[in-house]
C-alpha cells in the first residue's frame, strides 16, 4: 500500500460468546471477525462483500470504534483509536460515521427529522446559534434530496417512506462532514426502483465531501455499482479471502469462494443466465459459524481442496499481483 491509509484494521479479531456456559463448561466463543487486516485510504471507496453471518457488519462497526476488538488494532491516521487522548478521540468520533441498514429502526421514533439530523451539530456546539443550526440542517436535507427541506424538517420518521428515512439517516451522518463513512447494507431493505437513487446520492456526496466509504453489502451487483472505481474485499466466515480492484476482481476472481459467489449471483440477462453454471461445491450448505472446519474455513466446500494443506492452517492474505490479495494455498499463501 503506497499511499497512507486513513483508517486501517490490523489483525482484528472480535470474539463473541455463543450459547450459554452451562453448569460446568465454558461458554463457546466464536470469532465473528478472525484476524482481519484491511485499510481504506483518503477518499477511497471500498466495498466489503459477503453473505449473511460472515462478520462484515461486525468488522465495519469495529473499524469505526463502535465495538471493542478482542485483539488487534484499528488505526486512524496511524494512531490506535483505543489509545487516543480525549480530544483526539473526539475528533476521530466526529469523522467516523455510520449509516444503518434498517430505515425502520435507525431513526429515533419520537423525534422530528430536524432534531435527528441536527443532534450532532448541537451536541458538539459546532454552530453558535439555533438559527445557524436550522440553516445547516436545511442545507443538508436539500443535499440528500429531501426537497423542500422545510416540509421534511417537522416530520416524524413514521410519516416517511423507507427511502426517505434512509436519506435522513444519510443527512445525519454527513452533516458533520466526516472523513469516513460506514454504509452498512444501506440499500438492502430499499425497493429495487430506488436503490440506484440512493447509491447515486452517496457517490455525489463523496464527490462533494471527499469522504472515504466502507460499503458493506451481500449483493455483488450493488458492490460493483458503488465501488466501480475503487476496491472490493470479500469475506467468508470472519476472514477476508480476497481484495482487489472492483472490476478486476469481478472479471477475474481468484479465490474459489469468490468464484463460487460470482457464479451464483443472478444476472438479469436470460441468455447469459442459461450459459452460466454455478461452481460445483463439495457441500451445499455452509458450516456452523461456531464450528468451522480446521484450517481454511472454506475447505469443506472448496472444489480445489488439497488435503494436508488446506485443512491444517488458515491461509494468510498475501499480495498475488498488483493490488490483488488472496488468502488461498493455490496462490502461494
Amino acid at each position: 500500500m503506497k499511499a497512507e491509509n486513513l483508517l486501517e484494521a490490523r489483525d482484528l479479531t472480535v470474539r463473541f460468546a455463543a450459547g450459554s456456559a452451562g453448569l460446568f463448561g465454558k461458554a463457546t466463543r466464536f470469532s465473528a471477525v478472525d484476524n482481519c487486516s484491511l485499510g481504506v485510504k483518503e477518499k477511497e471507496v471500498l466495498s466489503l462483500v459477503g453473505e449473511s453471518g460472515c462478520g462484515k457488519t461486525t468488522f465495519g462497526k469495529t473499524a469505526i470504534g463502535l465495538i471493542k476488538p478482542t485483539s488487534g488494532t484499528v488505526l486512524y491516521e496511524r494512531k490506535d483509536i483505543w489509545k487516543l487522548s480525549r480530544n483526539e478521540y473526539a475528533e476521530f468520533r466526529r469523522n467516523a460515521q455510520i449509516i444503518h441498514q434498517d430505515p425502520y429502526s435507525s431513526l429515533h421514533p419520537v423525534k422530528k427529522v430536524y432534531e435527528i439530523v441536527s443532534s450532532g451539530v448541537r451536541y458538539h456546539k459546532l454552530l453558535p446559534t439555533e438559527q445557524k443550526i436550522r440553516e445547516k440542517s436545511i442545507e443538508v436535507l436539500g443535499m440528500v434530496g429531501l426537497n423542500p427541506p422545510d416540509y421534511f424538517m417537522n416530520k416524524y420518521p413514521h410519516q416517511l417512506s423507507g427511502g426517505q428515512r434512509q436519506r435522513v439517516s444519510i443527512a445525519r451522518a454527513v452533516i458533520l462532514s466526516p472523513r469516513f463513512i460506514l454504509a452498512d447494507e444501506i440499500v438492502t431493505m430499499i425497493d429495487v426502483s430506488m436503490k440506484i437513487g440512493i447509491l447515486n446520492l452517496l457517490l455525489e456526496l463523496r464527490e462533494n465531501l471527499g469522504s472515504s466509504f466502507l460499503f458493506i453489502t451481500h449483493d455483488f451487483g450493488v458492490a460493483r455499482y458503488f465501488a466501480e472505481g475503487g476496491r472490493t474485499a470479500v469475506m467468508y466466515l470472519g476472514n477476508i479471502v480476497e481484495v482487489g480492484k472492483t472490476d478486476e476482481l469481478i472479471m477475474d476472481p481468484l479465490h474459489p469462494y469468490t468464484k463460487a459467489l460470482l457464479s451464483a449471483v443472478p444476472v438479469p440477462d436470460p441468455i447469459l443466465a442459461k450459459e452460466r453454471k454455478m461452481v460445483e461445491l463439495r457441500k451445499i450448505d455452509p458450516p456452523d459459524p461456531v464450528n468451522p472446519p480446521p484450517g481454511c474455513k472454506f475447505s469443506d466446500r472448496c472444489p480445489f481442496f488439497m488435503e494436508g494443506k488446506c485443512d491444517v492452517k488458515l491461509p494468510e492474505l498475501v499480495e498475488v499481483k498488483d493490488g490483488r490479495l488472496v488468502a488461498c494455498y493455490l496462490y502461494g499463501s
Partner: protein
Amino acid sequence: MSLQEECPNIYDIDNLTVEYVLRNSSVKAVTDVSLDISNGGAIGIVGESGSGKTTLALSMLNLVPTPGKVMSGKIIFNGDKDILSLKGEELRQFRWKQVAMVFQGALNSFNPVLRIGEQTLETITEHESIDKQKALDKANVLLKLVRLDPERTLKAFPHELSGGMRQRAMIAMALLLDPRVLILDEPTTALDVMSQKYILNILSELRKRLGVTIMLLTHDLAICTEVVDRVAVMYAGRIMEVAKTEDIFLRPKHPYSLGLMQATPSVFGDVKKRKPIPGSPPDMFNVPKGCPFNPRCQYAIDVCRETNPALEEISKGRLVACYRWRDVS
C-alpha cells in the same frame, strides 16, 4: 411425468379486485387483475412493496385475511372449480392438496421447540387420512430431491439448520400431498446467494420431475432468469406487463418493466447505463389517477393521467397495459 389434463390453464383469473376495508379508508390491494397460468408452467410475478402480488397469491387460495375482501372477479382452477366460492371442507381439501403455498419468511416461522418432523410431517398425517408410512416414504423422497438428508432433517430442531436448509425443508413439505400448483412468496429473499441459486435450481428440477406448476413471487427481477418461463410485472395492484422471460428482459414494452431493468445493479453489463426510477412507490391510500405509474413515467402523456390503460394482448401470450408501449425501448 407431467399429466396433460384437458384444461390447458390450471388457473384462470378474471378481473380480480381485492380491497382491504379499514375504519376510515380502504386500500385496493389488487385491481382488475386477469391472468392465466398454464398447466405445468412456471410464472414469476415481479413487484415491489405495495404491488399486490402477495394478496393476489392469497386470493388464489381464498386465504385473503380480513379486513380484505374480494370485491369482484373470478378465479377458476383447472377449468371447473371456482375458488372464491369454495367453503368449508371443500376449501380445506383444495388447500395444500391441490395448491400449496410457501409463505414469505416461512423459514423463520418454524416452532423453535419442536423438531422439523414433528411440526410438518406429523401435523399433515394427523390432519389428513393418509397412511403414515406412505407419507414418511414420500417425505424421504422429497427431502432427497431438495438435497437434504431426510433422517437428519426430520429429527433436527429449526435452529440446527441453516436458513437455506429450512427453506428447502419447507418446500419439500409443501409438496407432500402432491399439489398441482406450488406458490412461493419471496422464497429466497432472506437467503444467501448460493442457497438462493440452489433453491432455484431445485425448483426447476422439481418442476421437471413432478410436473408441478410453479408461481414465484419476487421483487428481484434477476431471479426470473431461472425457473420461470413467463413473467408478470405488477405495480400498485395492477398487472403492467406479461411476457416470456426473454421478452421481458430483452424487449420490455412497459415503462415500469424497462425502468426496473435499468434500475437493477448487476455484476455484468454497463454500470453507466443504470438509472433509478424517479419518485417513490405509490401510496396505496392515494393511488394516482389514471395509470398508477404515470407520476414516475418518462413516457407519460395526458391520457395516462386520466384513464387507466387496459391490459392488451399485443402478440401471442404477450400483454401490456400502456398507451405508449410502441415507443418503449
